[in-house]
């Protein structure tokens, strides 16, 4: 064994420190410190790097440096396990973040941040990128002090600790959650530059919890008279929403789990209601109470907001279902195609009424359509990923997707929506989205119908 161990770090040695003298150990430690210091310094600054699309090599070119000259990560020692005990995405991915829409809201506690759909794959939204909508700020509540109360038209009014709830039979199900105001700014004209802001108030997660029906049965809800339940949050806004008893007894989940871990605080830790197919505002966060009753409550967010302004000046109240919708996420607004030729056009489709049956894609502004491939799993009230091949000839093209759900409902065009609901509404805008690919390769948000 070499006496000078300063360069041993980096070679594979079986459990070296068990066999070393005190002096040798100190040498090894010094070498490691130097190495770690260097690694940290390298990690600190992530600046610009050259674009790296595949280009044909020039004649006589021996090859690319990244292949011919071995990089540091091929010739050095990597970082230790548990360097970051709760792992984070690569620093190279830091462009993909939840972002706010400037000017959309005036108070950061009653605001929204949008999921970067333009960069996501498959159907599960990473928990840290799940869109946020808070009505009076978010909290990180001590779970040992959180309680759920069930009262009203029940045989016995009950209180549950998190210990109690997590002891109950649980389910794990994948569902989308979409804010009722997703795509809201575009009832009229185009206003937003990218799919993050046009559609980024939708996310999809695997939720774990006890079915609300289990809890209502345990409390002996009044099967003859109960028609609605009220869900109420424990935060400052104490969000309250009316839910139909049929809905409550069907697939609603009192959830604590999200994507294999506990809910994130921004998403309602330690307890939220999952109301599949219904707009996100009903998925009450920090859930503290369920009341069983026989009339609707007309709470603030059922009587002033989340209502649909119709052309005759009335408002439709209690329009909670998120109807069938889809959007192409790549290529999408604000993106840049680097060349002509083959592209995989990909996007997401979902329906609050069931499963996605089919997604069609047009590249000529809706004149001709081809049916896209649905990637599994295709689940009820969950995001569904679609893909379709496209060879771009470099001419202007308008890309659209159109989803059809298991009820046969076809996602409408914006002019069809407006013909029924006018242009002054805010909520429940599920129109076909158009992306214009210009000759320069840039993709922009347009309306074509």
């Amino acid at each position, binding site marked *: 064994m070499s006496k000078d161990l300063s360069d041993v770090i980096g070679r594979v040695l079986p459990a070296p420190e068990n066999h070393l003298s005190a002096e040798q150990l100190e040498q090894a430690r010094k070498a490691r410190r130097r190495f770690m210091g260097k690694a940290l310094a390298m990690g600190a600054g992530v600046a610009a790097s050259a*674009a*790296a*699309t595949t280009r044909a090599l020039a004649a006589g070119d021996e090859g690319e440096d990244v292949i011919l000259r071995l990089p540091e990560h091929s010739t050095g020692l990597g970082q230790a396990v548990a360097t970051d005990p709760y792992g984070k995405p690569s620093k190279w991915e*830091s*462009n*993909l973040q939840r*972002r*706010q829409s400037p000017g959309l809201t005036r*108070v950061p506690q009653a605001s929204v941040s949008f999921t970067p759909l*333009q960069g996501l794959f498959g159907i599960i939204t990473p928990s840290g990128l799940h869109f946020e909508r808070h*009505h*009076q700020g978010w909290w990180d509540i001590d779970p040992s002090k959180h309680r759920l*109360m*069930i*009262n009203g038209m029940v*045989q016995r009014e009950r*209180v549950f*600790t998190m210990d109690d709830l997590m*002891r109950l039979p649980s389910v794990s199900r994948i569902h989308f959650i979409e804010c009722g105001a997703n795509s809201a700014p575009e009832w009229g004209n185009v*206003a*937003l*530059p990218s799919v*993050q802001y046009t559609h980024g108030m939708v996310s999809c997660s695997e939720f774990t919890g006890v079915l609300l029906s289990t809890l209502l049965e*345990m409390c002996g809800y*009044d099967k003859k008279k109960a028609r609605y339940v009220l869900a109420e949050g424990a935060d400052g*806004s*104490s969000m309250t929403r009316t839910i139909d008893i049929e809905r409550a007894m069907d697939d609603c989940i009192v959830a604590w789990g999200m994507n294999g871990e506990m809910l994130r605080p921004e998403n309602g830790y330690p307890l939220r209601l999952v109301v599949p*197919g219904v707009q996100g505002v009903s998925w009450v966060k920090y859930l503290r*109470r369920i*009341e069983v009753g026989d*009339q609707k*409550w007309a*709470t*603030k967010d059922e*009587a002033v907001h989340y*209502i649909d*302004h119709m052309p005759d*000046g009335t*408002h439709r109240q*209690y329009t*909670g279902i998120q109807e069938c919708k889809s959007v192409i996420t790549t290529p999408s607004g*604000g*993106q*840049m195609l*680097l*060349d002509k030729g083959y*592209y*995989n056009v990909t996007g997401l489709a979902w329906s609050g009424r069931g499963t996605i049956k089919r997604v069609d894609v047009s590249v000529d502004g809706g*004149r001709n359509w081809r049916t896209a491939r649905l990637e599994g799993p295709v689940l009820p009230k969950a995001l569904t990923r679609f893909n379709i091949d496209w060879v771009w000839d*470099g001419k202007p093209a*308008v890309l659209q997707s159109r989803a*059809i759900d298991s009820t046969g409902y*076809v996602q*409408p065009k914006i002019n069809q929506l407006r013909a029924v*609901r*006018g242009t002054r509404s805010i909520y429940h805008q599920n129109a076909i989205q158009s992306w214009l690919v210009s000759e*320069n*390769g*840039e993709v922009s948000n347009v309306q*074509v119908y």
Partner: protein
Amino acid sequence: MMTMTYPRRTLARLCAATLFALAAGPAAWAQATPWHDIGRDATPAEVKAWDIDVRPDFKGLPKGSGSVSMGEEVWIGKCAACHGDFGESNEVFTPIVGGTTQADIERGRVKNLELGSTFPQKTTMMKVATVSTLWDYINRAMPWNAPKTLSTDEVYGVLAYILSLADVVPPDYVLSDQNIAEVQKRMPNRNGMVFHEPLWKVSGKGDVKNVACMKDCPVDSKVRSSLPDFARDAHGNIQEQNRVIGPIRGADTTQPPPSAPVGSAPPPKVTVVAAAPAGGGADAKALLGSNACTACHGINSKIVGPGFNEVLAKHQGKADLVPYLVGKIQSGGSGIYGAVPMPPQPQISEADARTIAEWIAGGAK
């Protein structure tokens, strides 16, 4: 609390119990819902503490009363900073009052919600059909930074003040649980709500129809609306919001779109730019954001309250400036910059208030 019996289920449970007593088998497996008794009964006091909702039929409304003038006093102290003296402010939230008329009160429908209206906002009083909604919401969620701290009578008073601003009740009115049902009959948009069941039931059918035409479909293919130039980079540089690898990149929206066709220019440089976290950290600007200070105070200019630089200019040279500002931040104040008082901010710790005060004293940059 309701009491009722469920003969079928009780019978089933009795049968099960008898059966397994006889069989002396593994009863734990056989009980239909062995988790049935997990949890505990809620006490009456607990239900009273949390069951605060008020329905349109006024079930849940506590006894009490409040006059318009009492409500105005509470309003000026705790509500006007965000909503304006007369509920008309559009600075922090959408206005509460405005856009309704005496004719609307007669008819129960708000004219300004109809086509052709040029009224710029949809105020709360224009939309809300049920007075219970306002009582419930003020009681559960207001004031903004100290929800659930108003007394029952104060809630009546604040609501009476709002209703008087909209001419629903006269200026000398005393609103109470006894007369609120009469007030409901004067709500300007009380007949303005409709219920369309298919959009409430999962099993309903949609109200907008499209057909899945596949070939030579009737479309205009004309671009009817496109992103305005000013909106191109209104959300930051989209290039920095896209992945740095893959077939597609973000467009550099700080520059005009390229004029040459695709492929004729060198591929764009790719950049990784970590977005600064919106909150967190104890620096002053993060505290201003997380405590909603910037909703009312600009850095240099007045929004509802004075700009931070204006505060500094007024008190420049004050020996005890930092402790003075700490006190103002925590306890609020009025009369120095105008009639609208700043409400106390008890949620801001002394240390955080000091951070903000030192930042203001240091130039508010």
